[in-house]
């Protein structure tokens, strides 16, 4: 698997360092300073989550976790612990490359610190707290705006229900997924987004939501 991935990524002009354990990953990340780290959650020795926690303070690299089963909660935990995205085994090289490019692009966006986020017709002006679709201004409640803003700041990245609850309702929010589902439903209605065929806010089944990034195919 490692050899195949290394070969596949090199064909797409990435430089790849591969290590076998979490301990080595933490050491290597500090020494070599990669842009993106691909982390298998089923590591021998130090487990994926411990590795993720150890990596986070020392590196600004984007972390994509590799999960075995769709629907396993490990990727939700990993996202809550600071991972940027996930892929589910088995995946093709093309899919992986697309994820890596998206993470790299977001890193570029964040450093640019743009006050206006655009995806398709949707425009979110963070400085003026205004949202427009095409030429139409959209009026959102404070909760709806906060949720959309958080998704927009992480456009292209899957955001878990737990993270949204905590970010929008506060650190000690007690609520369930239905709160976020309900608010997302309201936002979609106001944006004129069809829940059965969403253009802007996409469901991440078993995880949460993702605002489509400008460069995303969806």
């Amino acid at each position, binding site marked *: *698997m490692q*050899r*195949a*991935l290394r*070969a*596949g*990524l090199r*064909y*797409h*002009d990435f430089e790849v360092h591969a290590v076998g354990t979490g301990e080595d990953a933490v050491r290597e990340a500090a020494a070599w300073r990669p842009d993106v780290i691909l982390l298998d959650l*089923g590591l021998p020795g130090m487990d994926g989550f411990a590795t993720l926690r150890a990596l986070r303070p020392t590196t600004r690299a984007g972390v994509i976790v590799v999960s*075995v*089963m*769709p*629907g*396993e909660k490990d990727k939700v935990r990993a996202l809550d612990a600071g991972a940027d995205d996930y892929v589910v*085994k*088995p*995946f*093709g*090289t*093309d899919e992986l490359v697309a994820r890596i490019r998206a993470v790299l692009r977001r890193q570029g966006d964040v450093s640019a610190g743009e006050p206006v986020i655009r995806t398709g017709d949707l425009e979110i002006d963070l400085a003026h707290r205004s949202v427009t679709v095409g030429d139409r201004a959209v009026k959102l409640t404070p909760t709806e705006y906060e949720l959309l803003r958080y998704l927009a700041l992480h456009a292209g990245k899957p955001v878990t229900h737990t993270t949204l609850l905590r970010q929008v309702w506060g650190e000690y929010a007690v609520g*369930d*997924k*239905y709160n976020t*589902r*309900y608010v997302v*439903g309201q936002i979609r*209605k106001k944006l004129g987004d*069809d*829940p*059965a*065929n*969403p253009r802007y806010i*996409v*469901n991440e*089944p*078993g995880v949460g939501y993702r605002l489509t990034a400008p460069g995303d195919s*969806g």
Partner: protein
Amino acid sequence: MMRRFAPYAVAIAGAVAVTAAIGLVSSRFEVPGLSAFYLLLVLWLGATWGRGPAVAGSIAAFLLYDFYFVPPVGTFTVRGPSELLELIVLLAVALVTGQLAGSLRRTQSAAEALAADERAMYELATAALRSPEVTAALSLLSERAVLLDGVRRFALVAMDFGNAVPLAGGEVSPDELRQAKWAYENRRAIGVAVSDGAVKLLRTQPEAAGPAYLPLASGVAVMKIEDDHPDPADLRMLAALVGLADLLLDRRRAALEAERARGFEASDRLKAAILSSLSHELKSPIASLRAGLTALTAPQAGLQPEQRDLLRDLDGQASRLDRLVGDMLALSRLEAGLELEREPIRFADLVGTALHQLRPDLKDRDVTLEIDDDLPPVEVDELQVGRVLTNLIENANEWAPAGGKIAVGASASEDRLTAWVENDGPAIAPTDLDRVFETFWTRRARGSGLGLAIAKRVVEAHGGTIRAENRRRGPRFTFTLPLARVAASH
């Protein structure tokens, strides 16, 4: 028998003795109103034995007094009105006195019996509840019950998950266990009943027949009561013991059920662990295959176009293998009865997710949606029902002709949502309408034959139903899902 008539004998003997005493006194002294001595006797009889002996004593006194002291002496006849009046007063006073003394005694003895019952019950109940072994407590109870007059046998049979298990009170024959089971399952007592806080014997069958059966909440009391005139206090006590046995059997069952649930939980965890490790073992080599094959299809790998095509085909086969493994694991997960993670969610969201996932396959498809905005949310496992939708939509996609249509719709009734997925492809043969949901049954060469079987199991795990039918436009799959109990709006 003797015990019952002894008080009457004493009453008559007493009346004779008092008559003798009166005769002795009146022969020496002239004392009026000596008949009052009889009242002392009657009072004593009533206080000691109750109304019956007191009345018997009164009548004996009346007759003896009339015979020996009322002129004409030596006959039962009466000379004049004053003598008659004297006799009537004696009888009336004796009767009333006896009556009063009798009722006083009854009240007192009832109170004593009740106090004794209560004391006995209290001792038994505390002993039973203190005992960690319910079976030991039940044995204690059964021993106490056979001490009661006329109770020959008091056995307790527990009903554990449909099996009759004798617990206390000696052996119970297989025939009796069958009877007990019948009584329990049909909630019918045989030979006894409990009403007004006492056990009542029903003499619907001959004495020689088997024991009486009284069904309880979690077991059956098997009793043999042999007494023509059982003491009501004993029958009340028996009813109280039955009540206590009922509670203890219930407690035992609750403990058994908790234990069983723990067992199931452990085996569920084991199954989940096995499935999880199995999926890891099966998926890892496929993941390596796909990573390697797709790596080589990159132009930079320097392979010829036809070699790349070959690798793409192989990657397609690896993906198919992955789907098959995934489907089989999903099916075994469902058959292992693993828990659903239900949550309220809008059906339109589920459809949106499924369509988003299948986007590449549905590129050239005309997919129409008939889902109202105001449908109430459903209470389902998001990922599992998502799988139902992707399986049904993929199936529709396989069968719809080139440029054909797929429609997904839903409507809500009182407690459930009815959803459907249809396409305008060829009809399903009427004989196959049920068989399409069977495991490994497929109409296509490419299918795993598991997609619809999984859909059926997921829907049924949610308490819904699924069916296939042929509509004018084409085949339609209809399934139901439970609606969420939360309010649709906040």
